Every structure is written in structure tokens, then in C-alpha cells.
């Protein structure tokens, strides 16, 4: 809406689109439940072979070194075909962290398998007692000679029960004040003795999450990333820019697309009350697009996003949920059916989309936490 592709971006989009259309397996399109890893990693490896699995990585590490607008184009074109969500914790989270904080050996060892899709990574930050108050985490790692002994439990890892490794935050100084000064960033091989994982079904019946139990797990000291007790900064440093993609208007627009298809199938598209609601939603998403493109410009200009990422997340998540609300609304008496609501080739899957969108305002810093951050850091309100 706000940006037309430049000539070179248009060429790039064309190239990406035709390759995706030719190569993304049809049975992986439009899935609202995560396919099994074996199916999914086929697509991961195809992208990897094409050199497109890590658009934002520098060439020296095997990435595309794509411009931000190219990265956005890839995300848009994947969304256009409703490509499945891949386990990209390694590519998106750990990779950039290793590039900034890893030693030469750490980079050599871990980056190539991420790129090839040989290793699936899970992110292990939250604990049962530490959600919004992450700094209170208690999983303990005691340094003994050349290794850590880790005890505790981590929860809400995406797909840890299918993962090979986990990057995680552990407490290495129980006395530290403030609490986040006693936390380190550690890589743990999930095949190590003493590690157990348990899948957790989400509200939509998808095995999205896991709990990981760590019982006297031996972790070599070389798996420490960044300084001992310096893990808080390692984990948080690159968060803001990542949020650009999680706050993309595309997620809500994909739901709008479902809404319009359903409405034209069931005749609601001629109802002025529906049109008013849809227009209100679309206008809100236009405002979100404006924020998104401005943030992209800031990042492209090397300027920090800062608390603006909290604003974006609040807007993105509330728009997404407003969209799924309208989807259920338009479905009327079928708003609770789990049978696939097919319109032409499309599976609209109203209930699952609605249920999954509950996640948005809870994970990655709940809306309440984002508001606390903005109250403190932008408005300067007292605590």
C-alpha cells in the first residue's frame, strides 16, 4: 500500500514468486496445524539449497545479505502462498546472536548446520515460575572446571520435543542483584543425558510447545555464549529488530483475505454492517502498515527501533485479534465449526485461526508487559 517495489525489487519479487510457486510443495500450503518435522524440513532444505533460508545473514556466513526490502518481499511471498511456519529459531534468533557474541569456533561449529537445516534449535527462556518476570528464572548452571551442571526446567519452547539443541538462559549467580545480572546464555544439546522433553498441546490442539526438564545435565564450558553472567544482554540485544517481522501487517492481512473470501461465499459482502466493520479493520491495518514501513526505514538507516517495537507489537497483535474476531463474526452460525470451511480451494479453518491468535498478546512479551515498558521508558511515569 505504502511502498511500490523499486525496479530491482520488482525483479526480485518476480523471481522469488515464481520459484516459490514452482517449489513449495502443495500439501504444505495453507496448513493451520504444524506438519510433522519430516515434511517440513524438506521445504527448509529446499530453501537452504536455493540460498534463501537466511535472507538477513551476511554472505560470509552463507546468508543472502538481502536488503531489508528484499527480506520483506520474501516474507510477503511466503505469506501469499500460506507457506508453513518453519523452525527458524536458529536462523532468526541464535544466528545473529552468535554472529555478534560467538567466538570464531562457536560460529564455525553452529552456523553451518543451522543453514543446512541439519539441526533444529529451540529457544529456552521461560520457566513455569518465570514468564513476564523473566529475570527471576531459577534454572541453575553451576560451573565446575570445564563444564556446567544444569538443573531446572524450561517451558513454552516451540517444538523442543522435535529439536536437537536449545539456546537458553540459566542462572549462574544466585546472589546477583539486580537479578538479571546473574544470568548466562548457554547452548544445550538436547540429546545429552538428563534432558527430557514433553510436548504441550496449545489451545488449538497443535503440539506447538514443549517443556524441557534438565536434571544434572553436563554442558561443556565452550557452550557459553558471551561473558559469564552476561546472558541478559546477549538475549535481549537483538530483540527489537526481530519484532519488525513479528509485527508485520501481513499476518492480519492474511486473515482479512480469509474474511473477504468467506463473506463473498456466504453473501455477507453485500451487508453494509459487515462492510463498515471490514473498512474499520482495514483502516487500522493501513495504520499498522505505516508503522511497519517507518520502522523498516529506521532499521535500514541503521537507527535503533527501541520502544517503538512495543508500540508495533501492541498494534499488530490487537489488529490480528480484531481480524480473527471478524472472521468468526462473519461465519455466524458456523463460527464454531471445526470442519474445514472450504471456499473454492481454500480451507478457511475459522476456529483454529481464531484460537491461535490468542497467542499474539501473550507471547514475546505480553501486552501488559509492553504497556509497562512504554509507561516507564517513553512516558516516564513513576513506579
Amino acid at each position, binding site marked *: 500500500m505504502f511502498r511500490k517495489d523499486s525496479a530491482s525489487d520488482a525483479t526480485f519479487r518476480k523471481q522469488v514468486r515464481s520459484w516459490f510457486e514452482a517449489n513449495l510443495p502443495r500439501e504444505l500450503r495453507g496448513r493451520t496445524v504444524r506438519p510433522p518435522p519430516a515434511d517440513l524440513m524438506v521445504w527448509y532444505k529446499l530453501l537452504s539449497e536455493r540460498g534463501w533460508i537466511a535472507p538477513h545473514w551476511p554472505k560470509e556466513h552463507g546468508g543472502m545479505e538481502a536488503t531489508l526490502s528484499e527480506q520483506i518481499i520474501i516474507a510477503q511471498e511466503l505469506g501469499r502462498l500460506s507457506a508453513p511456519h518453519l523452525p527458524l529459531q536458529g536462523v532468526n534468533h541464535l544466528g545473529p546472536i552468535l554472529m555478534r557474541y560467538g567466538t570464531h569456533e562457536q560460529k564455525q561449529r553452529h552456523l553451518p548446520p543451522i543453514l543446512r537445516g541439519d539441526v533444529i534449535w529451540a529457544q529456552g527462556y*521461560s520457566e513455569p*515460575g*518465570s*514468564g*513476564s*518476570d523473566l529475570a*527471576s528464572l531459577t534454572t541453575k548452571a553451576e560451573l565446575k572446571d570445564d563444564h556446567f551442571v544444569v538443573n531446572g526446567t524450561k*517451558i*513454552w519452547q516451540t517444538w523442543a520435543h522435535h529439536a536437537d539443541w536449545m539456546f537458553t538462559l540459566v542462572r549462574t549467580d544466585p546472589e546477583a542483584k539486580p537479578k538479571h545480572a546473574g544470568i548466562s546464555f548457554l547452548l544445550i544439546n538436547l540429546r545429552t543425558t538428563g534432558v527430557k522433553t514433553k510436548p*504441550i*498441546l*496449545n*489451545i488449538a*490442539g497443535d503440539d506447538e*510447545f514443549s517443556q524441557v526438564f534438565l536434571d544434572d545435565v553436563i554442558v561443556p564450558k565452550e557452550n557459553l555464549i558471551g561473558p559469564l553472567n552476561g546472558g541478559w544482554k546477549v538475549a535481549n540485544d537483538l530483540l527489537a529488530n526481530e519484532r519488525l517481522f513479528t509485527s508485520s501487517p501481513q499476518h492480519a492481512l492474511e486473515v482479512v483475505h480469509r474474511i473477504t473470501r468467506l463473506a463473498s461465499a*456466504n*453473501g455477507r459482502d453485500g451487508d453494509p*454492517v459487515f462492510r463498515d466493520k471490514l473498512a474499520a479493520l482495514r483502516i487500522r491495518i493501513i495504520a499498522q502498515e505505516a508503522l511497519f514501513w517507518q520502522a523498516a526505514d529506521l532499521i535500514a538507516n541503521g537507527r535503533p527501533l527501541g520502544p517503538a517495537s512495543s508500540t508495533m507489537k501492541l498494534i499488530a497483535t490487537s489488529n490480528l*485479534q480484531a481480524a480473527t*474476531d471478524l472472521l*468468526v*463474526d462473519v*461465519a*455466524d*452460525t*458456523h*463460527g*464454531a*465449526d*471445526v*470442519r474445514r470451511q472450504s471456499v473454492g480451494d481454500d480451507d478457511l479453518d475459522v*476456529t483454529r485461526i*481464531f*484460537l491461535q491468535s*490468542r*497467542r499474539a*498478546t*501473550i*507471547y514475546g512479551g*505480553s*501486552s*501488559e508487559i509492553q*504497556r509497562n515498558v512504554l509507561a516507564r521508558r517513553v512516558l516516564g511515569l513513576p513506579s
Partner: protein
Amino acid sequence: MDLLLSAEQEQLQTSASKLLAEQGGVKRMRHLRRTSAGFERSVHEKMASAGWFGVLVPPEQGGLGLGLTELALLLMETGRALAPEPVAPTAIAAYALSGGVRSAESSSLLEQVVAGEKIVSLAVEGDGSELDDTRASLAAMFTSGRIVLDGTRAGVPLASACDGFIVAAWSKDGPVLCYVSRSASGLTVEEHETVDGRTYGTLTFRAVPADHLIAAPALAAPLLQALYDMMLIATAAELVGVMSAALDMTVEYLKIRKQFGKPIGSFQALQHRAVDNLVQVISTRTLLFQICDQGIVASSEMASALKAYTAGEALALTKSAIQMHGAIGFTDEHDVGLYLKRAMWLAAYLGNETAHRKRFDRLSQFEPV
């Protein structure tokens, strides 16, 4: 807490609550999700023994002879426990039988329904956009003394698992109500799974002979209207139960869950949200009771106002309950999600907030004091 219930009404509510808790409460429902029947005949029979299905049936016909308020109390408890038995359809089917033509077949069927021996569901919903317009989809022909049905009926709760249906159809003289066994020849049931792990059905009738007539046009027209509105009120009652249980569960969690060294219920933003949810529970419940208080035949306008209001507030409240539970609320293993899903079905069933707001607008005239 803010009701004006009689001692008898309070006792009915308490015993209903106890009965459901004894059967296993929400845990039971969790295990019954996506099973073929979706509910338990044995529990249905216990409900019958407690008189639930005769609540609207006059004593001389074997019922309790109570009113909508009592039905609402039972359904609020049903909603609170997420009990999957077809309480509302059965109780309202019994009302229909008691109010239709007195025939040997009707009386015998009524007796069986009230006793829990037969489970009868309601097939009176029109097409989604028509709501209570029964004309559209099912035709009744009187042929050599029998009624023969052709067409479809949608939105029939637990259609595959019941023994028969009270069916509304359209004859050349107007609407009729009749009884059709589940096993009637020419009747097929297409099942749809709902998000809360139960089913409802679409019935297709191909020259299906009805078992017997319940009401001919002159009687059927008002009776049918009453049945439809009663089902709206019943659905709202179950929603109110769902809402109040979800709120209670959330408030408990706010008191127990600690973050930043304090119970999260001490944070004002969450307190105020919980209060807004409390207000939703109080206002929907009060509206429900005041409408029930108007007597067994409520106005269609009010029934739609109630359904629209309760559907909207229930979705908002159960979503809020998930949010306040945080990550654990987003899992299948926590019960709070079951309440959201039940609210989704009840909100959609018989037409959602938008649909009933439109029906309200159509039916109502604004007259200032």
C-alpha cells in the same frame, strides 16, 4: 449474590451443582470430547431423576411445573460444569410435547423424555440468515393421513446420539411440529464437529414419514416461536454459567500466580480488567433473570437482545480469561480454554451477536418512557 431467588430456587441450583460435581465436573467433559456420543446416557438419566427435563412440564403431565428461571438455573450449572448432555433441547422438547396436541403418542413420548429414557433433540433452526423463519428449508405434506417431510434442518445438537427430533416444517397451511425418530426411513444425519469437541447435525429428509404430529398450524405457529425464543434464552443461560466459571477460575489464578514477587492480582490493570469481567457476569445474569421473570413466553425482541448481549460479552470475557492466565491459558491442558471454546459454540448457535442484533432491530420499536 445480587439475585432475588427463592429458597426453593437456591436449593435447585445447589443440588444441580452438586449432581454435576459428583459426575466429575469439567474433567468428565474433557474426557468426552470428540467421543462418538459426546455425552453420557447414565448422567442424562440422573438429570432426569432429579426432574430436570420436566422443569417446564405441568405437574399433571408429570413435570415440576416450574418456569424459565428454574430452567436457567439448571443451565447455568450445566454451563459452569461444561456438562455435554443436551439439557436445554431435552427440557424444551418436553415443553413442546406438553404444549402440543394431547395424543397417546405424545403423552407416552413426553413421559419417556421426562424420565430420561428417550433423548429428543430440537430441529427447528432455520437457515443462518433467516433465523426463526422455518419456511425456507423443510416442507411438510399431509398424505393419506401421514405427514411426510422433505428438505433439511440445520443446527441440531448431538443429532447422531439422540433418539428422535421435534421437527418444525412448513405445510401449505402454515408451520407444523412433529416428531421424527432418528431411525425414520429417508432421514440422514450429517455430523459436524464443533470447536468444543462435540457435534451437531444437519438433517436431510427425503420423503420421511413423521412418527406423529405435535402441533398443527394454528397451535404450531405460536408454539414454534416460543420454542425458538426459549432456546435463545436457554443458550444465554448456559453462556452465563460459562462466563461465571471462567471468571471464578481467573480470579483464583490472579490470587495464586506470582510474578515480580507479588500475586498478579495485585496489579491494577489486571484488577480492573477482572472487574470489567465481573460487571459482564453480573449484567448478563441479571438480564437473564429479569427476562425469565417475565414468564414462560418471553418476547422475541427480548430473547434476541439477550442472545446478542450474552454472546458478545461471553466471547469478550473468555478471551480476557485466557489473556489473564497467560501462557498456561493458551494450552489445551488448562481448563480455561475449554470455556472459551464452549462460549464460541454457544455464541454461534442459533445466530451470533450480529445476527440477533439485527433481529432485535427488526422486531423492536423504540419507545421512550
